[in-house]
């Protein structure tokens, strides 16, 4: 019996020792796990920081892409303008020519000097180099470029593409479809119609009239409209072609139409039309003398038609000449 008790006492001690050993082991495991947990936290902090940096870079790319679209788009418009002036022929499609210049720096396969190192892919290359410098791979596959008016005086260049951004160490990556645009004012650009129809002898740049709503008046009579005409200012009118349509010699009406009055004395040496032709540029270029015209008293040679645009507004109303035409 005593022997049995002695064994029992011995086995209790064993349990005690075992418990102590298990506790020690638990403590060791606990301390290891605390340390390990910290390492994970540190790693995740690094990853978080990296992801944050990449995200900010992505945002910067977005912002700068607008900038790049503006620059390449602005120059592509100059490129089309230059091509039309140099060849004396209008382009078949403004949008196609624009995209070719924007992406390839060429028009009809010919290099355009204004696009050298100014195409959108050039920007992708440069921005890709910046990305590589901070350990990021950047690729942008442009799937579409288009240009259209947002108002008579502004064109919007849209770019659609798939952007891929990834860390060189494969920490994180982004795949996004981008639709980014930039707006470009057409003010200051040359009207291609004048270039072609006058063999580059008469250069007119798009400028908004300063007499909007004030073309004529009791005090000024026709002084303002005369200055509007002689200064070749442009007014918006939906019975006229838009700026972009003019590159294609599409002289039909547009929601974003703009128009000037040609100075017949100035342009007729290069493009003569019958006297009874409206001085509205899009009509004069076509020598369309089948449209009825009106004169203004004491204004030799001036002819204006009365076609409609902007709802039911007629041209004579648009230029406030109701009381002056004869």
């Amino acid at each position, binding site marked *: 019996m005593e022997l049995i008790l002695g064994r029992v006492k011995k086995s209790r001690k064993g349990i005690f020792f075992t418990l102590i050993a298990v506790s020690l082991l638990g403590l060791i495991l606990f301390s290891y796990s605390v340390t390990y947990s910290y390492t994970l936290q*540190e790693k995740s902090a690094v990853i978080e920081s990296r992801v944050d940096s990449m995200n*900010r870079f992505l945002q910067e790319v977005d912002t700068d892409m607008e900038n*790049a679209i503006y*620059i390449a788009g602005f120059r592509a418009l*100059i490129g089309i303008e230059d091509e039309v002036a140099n060849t004396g022929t209008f382009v078949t499609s403004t949008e196609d020519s624009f995209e070719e210049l924007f992406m390839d720096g060429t028009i009809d396969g010919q290099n355009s000097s204004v696009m050298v190192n100014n195409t959108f892919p050039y920007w992708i290359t440069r921005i890709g180099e910046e990305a590589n410098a901070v350990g990021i791979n950047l690729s942008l596959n442009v799937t579409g470029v288009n240009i259209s008016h947002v108002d008579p005086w502004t064109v919007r260049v849209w770019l659609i593409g798939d952007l891929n951004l990834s860390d060189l160490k494969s920490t994180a990556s982004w795949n996004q479809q981008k639709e980014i645009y930039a707006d470009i004012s057409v003010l200051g650009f040359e009207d291609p119609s004048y270039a072609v129809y006058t*063999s580059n*002898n008469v250069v007119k740049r798009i400028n908004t009239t300063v007499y909007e709503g004030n073309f004529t008046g009791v005090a000024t009579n026709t002084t303002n409209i005369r200055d509007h005409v002689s200064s070749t200012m442009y007014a918006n009118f939906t019975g006229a072609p838009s700026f972009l349509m003019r590159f294609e010699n599409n002289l039909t009406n547009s929601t974003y139409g703009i128009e000037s009055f040609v100075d017949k004395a100035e342009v007729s040496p290069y493009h003569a039309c019958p006297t009874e032709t409206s001085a509205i540029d899009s009509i004069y270029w076509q020598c369309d003398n089948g449209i009825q015209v009106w004169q203004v008293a004491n204004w030799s040679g001036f002819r204006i038609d009365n076609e409609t645009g902007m709802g039911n507004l007629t041209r004579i109303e648009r230029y406030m000449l109701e009381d002056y035409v004869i």
Partner: protein
Amino acid sequence: MMGQKRVSRRALFFTIDALIAALIMIGGLLLITSSYVSEQPRTLINHMSQDLMNILGELQVHEMNNTYIDALVTNGSIKDVNNTLLVQMGEFWADDYLDLANEFAQNVSEGMVSGIFGYSIAIDNETIYTRINPVTNSLVSSKKIISGIQKSKPIKGFVAKARATSISKITNQIISFSPEGSGWDGTDANKGFLYITKWFNVSSSASINNVTFYISLHLEDGGSDWSVIDINNGTCVLDRDDLNFDAGEEGLFDIQDVTGCVNSGTNNVVLQIWNNGYNAHLHPGMYLAINYNVTEDVSYLTTEHSNRIFFDNIRSVEASGDGSGAWSMLPFHVPDGATNVSAVLYLNLQEVNDLQDRVWWWYNDAWDFRVYVNSDTVFYQKDTGDSNDINDCLSYGAACGADYNWTGSFDISGEVVTGTNVVALYVNNYGDTVGGDGDTVIYSDPFSDPDNSSFVELNYSLTPALPYGVVDIRRVQSFGGSPDPTKDTSFSFPSEAEAISSVYAHVAEQYSYITRVYGDTGFPPGNMVFESPASRAVPTDVFIPDSYLDVSELVTNYIRLDETSGNDIRGESTVEYGFYVPSFVGYGSVFGTVGEANNDAIDRLQDVMGSFVNVSDLVLDNTSMSDVPSMWGPAVIEVRVWN
């Protein structure tokens, strides 16, 4: 038993001791690791750097209520108030206005960052502004990329194009005489002269350098001397004996320097030729080559073309009852691509005889004049009851019939071909027969009486080769070498040539029959561009259509003249090639100032005009476009904040 208890207590002691030691070690370990990771939170300055970057990148100049900035706007240092503050800083930096960039950066950023922090703004690693606080703890950086900005590059520049409105050039003008005649017989004492009068115009502002007369005539080489060539009413006169005949040859080919005889403005050349026993006439290859400087307005190519190609005035005078007659070969040319082509032949024939053919004791009507157009088949003849025996007049005075003047016109549009066309007109004579009595005249006076003259009026539409003003430069190149039935030459247009204006071969032959002309860009040239439509119908000018040539300076163009009869073509035959030099250049590179852009446009214009145009006499106007952005950079703007 006691011993066992002691052992067990000792074990307990050791165990507890080990436990305490382990706790101390683990605690120490935890303390060390926790102190290792202890770090000041940097969230604040991290946000500060980003916020500062965002504010500078978003705020526009006009949104700043700041007297310093207002002053910069007023004095023109800031040109675009819609610039963001960062872009404006970048603009100053790009323009190398570092002090201004520094002041601007300080002014707009100082109030945004607490004084306990240091910060700096740098562009492409060049510090623009820094607040010099020592870095005691953390430093955080934010970066922004901006395309369109680069050191020493204009952010928004100018492009310009230019055109010349007036230029000075050196060029050549060819006044050609195609075969025409004839001065019939007579005697040495009473010569049957033929008088040919050609009027031509040289630009009124021309300064003539030299004039060479290539003379190709068939005339009497014996007997008494007489004046053959009179330029400008006696200004220069060449007698028969002044001309250099080959021994025993009535077919003369001579070259005379007549510089000083030809003036700017209207000129005339009167030829007085005669031949005893045959008719005197001009051979192919007679022309005046005038080299001159001229200042003139730039010309513009038009779509609609209407030209009158005048006959020379030809008057044949009967001598010693030998009869008179006049004939002329008038070439005119229709370029490639011409549409709506129409041609009308207007004739004013004077002192035409109503010729009669004597048949036994009665007379049949004989033809009085004939017209051929690009063919040896008669296009028209007066009268229709024809007989070829038009020389009966010489034998039977009654066969001469009455004199009459004839004016009228023929629409010859249906006969016109692209390239060289030839109208051949015979009045009171044909071949070796002559029937006119008294004088016979093909009347023409293009300057004083154009509407009553004899001419071809040619109309056609042609898309202009170039859409802007052009300068037409013409060069003349001799075939050279010794006479041969087949002559070849080649040429290339110069690099300045933008388009071909027109190219002619001037065939010089003493005796011709059927001549063929070829043009091509390969050798031997395979494209026949002209073949005499009838024997001896060889005009001095043969047009080479553009489609057989290449304007590239890298391409050689070949011209071949081939006389099928085996007669020689002379080395003095020439090719006259005209080309357009543009008087316009489009946009070039982008420059920081309008002056630089304009100067670049002028330089480029001068380059494209090359050596053919005297650039010092250019009158230019130009137009520039401003605010043209460039894909410079991207510049990397970095904001650092530290504490």
